[in-house]
């Protein structure tokens, strides 16, 4: 097979044979593609709705539109409330069934896979940069802006530049306490924040088998942080297990692309990876946490977000906390990404562990990740967060500092009151 996973999805969508796709879907070509789902949220949907209504056109297909009110919800202020109302009214008036409001919503990139809206072989376009998450299921998914969503509402289609691709050939298995977050931070540190600009990053090799679906979601979620258009994992037994629950079905596999389909191939030995942290103010500014010798005092820890708010992330955090208490003065905020995850965490006892250990547990929201609400940083404060960006002012004051880490490292830091990995915690005992 001479087509990458991404090209195989686009070829299937456009009804092209491998031979036809080799010319029509050559990297760099501009194409129009039918969209299975166009998603937007309380920040991006109001702009899309304004542009769409201003066009005077009708809604092409109300069933391929999804709205999730997750960023500044439950409404943080009157302006946010108005934004949500705008989306709610539009959804109601137009009979948009995939509309998720407080009570049904979750963080969009955890919710859409859970609801079976994101699925293998689908073309998923979202007005949110982390829409690339769904590549974990073998979808083509990428982020765009609001006007692009308005364009899909009008036409059902999106224009795309066919991306060239980098293949990550994964070998070995992750060690205990090392997760998908450490893998993607390692990759971003290696290739830089524009290392895959305009390209796909695709994952292959025997190492894929050992990565859980949650690991894969985390990895694809942060594809954008190295500039990638999308990230894709192959469809395998783990995908089957997931989609049997979310959609009641399994899906055909991709064919294995020849190495010649890729612009570059990078080998990664998963067993060699160590817990990794991105220092302020770029996700590429990575270091292995156990190699950090300076003492970095922590004011706040956030465990959640579209990157790491899934059940295995909470399980890792609970495993590390395990009857201990977070350091006095470290505000530890846990945010299950959806209500389903929240409930499962409750049934498994994680919520009890968190609360007894001095953390708080919030309703699903993007909230603090983008400095919206539910945990804003003051001037000079430091956070260790399982979120995806540590840009200047991302979580609050312009002179606050964010260290991106896995749930295990974030919880270890909450317990120690300073940036540390699990290993550092054991050494202190």
């Amino acid at each position, binding site marked *: 097979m001479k087509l990458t996973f991404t090209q195989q999805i686009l070829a299937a969508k456009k009804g092209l044979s491998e031979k036809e796709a080799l010319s029509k879907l050559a990297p760099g070509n*501009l*194409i*129009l593609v039918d969209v299975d789902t166009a998603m937007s949220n309380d*920040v*991006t949907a*109001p*702009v899309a709705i*304004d*542009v769409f209504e*201003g*066009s*005077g*056109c009708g809604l092409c297909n109300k069933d391929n539109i999804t709205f999730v009110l997750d*960023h*500044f919800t439950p409404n943080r*202020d009157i*302006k*946010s409330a*108005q*934004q949500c109302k705008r989306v709610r009214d539009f959804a109601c008036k137009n009979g948009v069934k995939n509309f998720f409001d407080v009570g049904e919503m979750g963080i969009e990139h955890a919710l859409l896979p859970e609801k079976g809206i994101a699925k293998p072989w689908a073309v998923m376009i*979202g*007005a*949110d*940069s982390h*829409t690339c998450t769904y590549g974990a299921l073998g979808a083509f998914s990428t*982020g*765009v*802006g*609001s*006007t*692009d969503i*308005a*364009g899909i509402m*009008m*036409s059902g*289609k999106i*224009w795309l530049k066919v991306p060239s691709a980098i293949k990550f050939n994964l070998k070995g298995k992750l060690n205990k306490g090392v997760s998908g977050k450490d893998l993607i931070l390692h990759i971003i540190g290696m290739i830089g*924040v*524009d290392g895959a*600009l*305009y390209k796909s990053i695709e994952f292959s090799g025997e190492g894929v088998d050992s990565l859980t679906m949650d690991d894969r979601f985390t990895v694809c979620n942060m594809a954008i942080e190295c*500039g990638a*258009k999308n990230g894709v994992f192959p469809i395998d037994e783990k995908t089957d297990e997931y989609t049997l629950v979310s959609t009641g079905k399994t899906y055909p596999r991709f064919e294995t692309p020849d190495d010649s389909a890729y612009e570059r191939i990078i080998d990664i030995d998963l067993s060699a990876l160590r817990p990794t942290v991105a220092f302020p103010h*770029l996700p590429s500014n990575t270091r292995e946490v156990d190699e950090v010798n300076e003492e970095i005092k922590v004011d706040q820890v956030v465990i959640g977000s579209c990157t790491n708010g899934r059940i295995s992330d909470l399980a890792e955090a609970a495993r590390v906390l395990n009857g201990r208490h977070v350091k006095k003065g470290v505000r530890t905020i846990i945010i299950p990404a959806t209500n389903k995850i929240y409930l499962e965490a409750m049934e498994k006892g994680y919520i009890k562990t968190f609360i007894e250990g001095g953390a708080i547990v919030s309703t699903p929201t993007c909230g603090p990740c*983008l*400095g*919206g609400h539910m945990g*804003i940083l003051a001037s000079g404060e430091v956070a260790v967060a399982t979120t995806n*960006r540590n*840009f*200047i*002012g*991302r979580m609050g004051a*312009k002179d606050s500092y964010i260290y991106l880490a896995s749930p295990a490292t974030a919880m270890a830091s909450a317990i120690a009151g300073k940036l540390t990995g699990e290993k550092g915690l054991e050494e202190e005992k």
Partner: protein
Amino acid sequence: MIKGRVFKFGDDIDTDVIVPATYLSTFDPKELAKHCMEYTHPDFYKTVKEGDIVVAGKNFGCGSSREHAPIALKGCGVSIVIAKSFARIFYRNALNIGLYILECPEAVDNIKDGDIVSVDVNTGVVTNESAGKSFKAAPFPKFIQEIIACGGLVEAIKQGKYTD
């Protein structure tokens, strides 16, 4: 023809820097403009004038999908952003809302903060009038030129020009 004073920025200028997320409860260009670059360049909004030009390094506009970022720049009066490269979502958003952008690494290396620069958007020729040097950016692909010629994505769709 565009002509203006240059405000020069470095590499990887992200959307949280262009307009912090906390201000995203509105998409009014004048409101967003007030917060454009406020964390890193607090004087930008006060000094930038209608028609001025932003010149930046690689990966301009990385980060979030917020269309509010090009809207804020446009709201400040910025006429065009010339960069070594753009993050892909910012690139789409700028074209979609009618903010001119050009990728021209050579021009970026030869333009200083405060220079007066003119740009012919039809030919892609960038002239640093302060230094008396000209550079040529690669033209947009035909498909994108058509969208620009229609006046943006929405008009292109309405005019039936949205085909491949």
